[in-house]
């Protein structure tokens, strides 16, 4: 299926898609409400036409933070017909991305949703794809997102007593705060410096 | 006292002391290792008495096989790693049984030989043992074979779970 067909199939079959994205590079994403997260994922897994049997990754993107207030405009092609619901609007929050692939049909899909920065929680997908288990653990420790029903949401890569959520934008790299990244600047910047 | 007698006494002392150590050791693995000393000393006693074959059988079977199996079993099941003691509540009964056995054996030996001095016969030849086993003692030998075979089959049956 082409990405367009795929998105419209998911939209029709589930009725959960609130917004979709199609990038110029031909990659597709569908947005669902966080409370319908598990339902949408289950459809992708079980539906014969989707056939998403390969779990690629699950992660999050911090949309807020120091630049959160700028509220970037929507990217990619805007979704069709349906207006985006407030829950998946481009506001602050943590965007959760789950990327899956169908080996036989050879198509990809990004399943996305937005959860609030504080106390954000989703149903776990570890029952849908076993591979989600570790990816959710990683996302939980890095972003502070809860995954309800996860069998073991312990820290995966960070030390047990680590505090904070490193991949959020408000978690600062302390050395970078004290000192600018010492790497060479862009050619044009150096050029400007030399001129001035 | 001849050198042989001195060696006999020394080995006997080692065996006896080892025996005491086996039962007093708080750690079962220590006990098993003391048992090695006891069995080796007894094997050496056999050698000293010229029963070379029996002596080396003692080493091969008891030290080489039985104690190894014993240690194997202990390590698989009970013995904690490294230091650490194990004990149970059967000391009293064990003491009674041991004393009884010791008394009986002493009485038996005393009754049979008394003050009689045993003249030392030089070395029993292995060939003679072989001949004896397969001529005059062939029936007991075969009986033991059958018994061992039965034990083997039984062990396999027990080990098979289904």
């Amino acid at each position, binding site marked *: 299926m082409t990405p367009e067909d795929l998105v419209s199939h998911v939209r029709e079959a589930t009725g959960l898609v609130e917004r979709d994205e199609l990038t110029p590079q031909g990659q597709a994403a569908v947005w669902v409400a966080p409370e319908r997260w598990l339902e949408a994922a289950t459809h992708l897994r079980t539906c014969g036409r989707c056939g998403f049997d390969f779990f690629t990754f699950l992660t999050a993107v911090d949309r807020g933070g120091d630049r959160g207030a700028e509220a970037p405009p929507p990217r990619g092609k805007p979704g069709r017909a349906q207006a985006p619901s407030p829950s998946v609007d481009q506001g602050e929050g943590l965007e959760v991305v789950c990327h899956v692939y169908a080996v036989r049909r050879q198509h990809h899909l990004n399943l996305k949703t937005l959860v609030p920065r504080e106390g954000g929680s989703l149903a776990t997908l570890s029952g849908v794809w076993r591979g989600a288990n570790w990816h959710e653990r990683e996302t939980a420790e890095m972003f502070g997102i809860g995954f309800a029903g996860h069998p073991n949401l312990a820290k995966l890569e960070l030390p047990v007593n680590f505090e904070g959520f490193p991949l959020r934008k408000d978690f600062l790299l302390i050395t970078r705060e004290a000192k600018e990244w010492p790497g060479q600047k862009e050619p044009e910047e150096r050029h400007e410096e030399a001129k001035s | 006292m001849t050198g042989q007698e001195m060696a006999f006494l020394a080995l006997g002392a080692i065996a006896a002391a080892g025996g005491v150590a086996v039962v007093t050791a708080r*750690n079962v*693995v*220590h006990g098993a*290792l003391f048992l*090695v000393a006891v069995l080796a000393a007894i094997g050496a006693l056999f050698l000293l008495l010229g029963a*070379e*074959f029996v002596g*080396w*059988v003692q*080493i*091969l079977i008891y*030290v*080489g*096989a039985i*104690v*190894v*199996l014993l*240690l*194997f079993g202990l*390590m*698989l099941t009970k*013995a904690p*790693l*490294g*230091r650490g003691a194990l004990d149970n509540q059967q000391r009293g009964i064990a003491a009674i049984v041991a004393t009884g056995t010791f008394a009986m054996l002493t009485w038996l030996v005393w009754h049979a030989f008394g003050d009689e001095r045993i003249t030392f016969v030089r070395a029993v*030849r*292995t060939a003679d043992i072989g001949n004896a086993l397969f001529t005059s003692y062939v029936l007991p030998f075969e009986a033991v074979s059958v018994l061992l075979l039965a034990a083997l089959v039984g062990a396999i049956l027990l080990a098979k779970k289904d």
Partner: protein
Amino acid sequence: MILDRYFENAWAILGLKLGAILVLFLVAPIVVGYAEHKVLAHMQARLGPMEAGRFHGWAQLVADGVKFIQKEDIVPRAADRFVFTIAPVLVVVPVIMIFLVIPFGPGGWWGENMDLGLFYVMAISTVGVIGVLAAGWASANKFSLIGALRAAAQLIAYELPLVLAAAAVAMQAGSLSLVGIVEAQDHYWFVLPQIAGFALFVLASLAELSRPPFDMPVADSEIIFGHMTEYTGIKMAMFLLAEYAGVVALSGVATVMYLGGWHGFLVGWIPGPVWTFAKIGALAFFIIWLRATYPRMREDQLQKMAWKYMIPVALANILLTGVFKVVF
């Protein structure tokens, strides 16, 4: 005997022999160990030791020995100190005792000609496992314990084929004395009629020595050298010494049992001991070669091989030897 000509006193002869065996016990493993370094290296497209002692690193193992002596003797805090200390001794002593009875040449080139030599070797060679078990347990390390348990399980697998193969040789030679067995091979080596027994004996010996492909008790990539994990310095060196001395000792026993001991062929002027040592060397080379070639087997595969193939073959071998003896 050669020594009788020069020495009257039996004790002096005994002392000399013991001294010679001790020297052999200390030197032979170093030679075999160095050979292993070099042979493995050349089989693996590298050079091996090249520095110590200038000429092709001949002094590498001497240097290693010096290093081992200098190392700190560490006893883990949780270990059982007494058993931990005594275990290397328990492993080394039986190997020395095997050296006592191997005849290296005709006319007294042996420590002791025992009537029951073969039986003695079988009995003594099993004792070393107790040292391995003790070491594994006393180290208070789970990897060591697994290694020790594997060693014990391995003993059960290889001991029977080993003894049965030896029994067939004893029948063939009509003697249990190692000197007697060599003398019985005057006309032909026992490897010819006992080829199956020879294969069994070498395989079982490899298992006893924990040499590849039967090195499961010390498998470095699984259980990190098993019972040797916690040992350092001189105690570790004793384990290594026992391993390489064991290679020499069991190669020696196999030489005596199957390869005609000091009997040579074609050229008559080469003295007997040279033949013996050459044959031991050839077997040791074979053992090293195996290490370069084969991966490690699994414990249950060894058990299966021992019980399903080696023991039946050994029994059939005994039967055939018996028939052979009666008919001819």
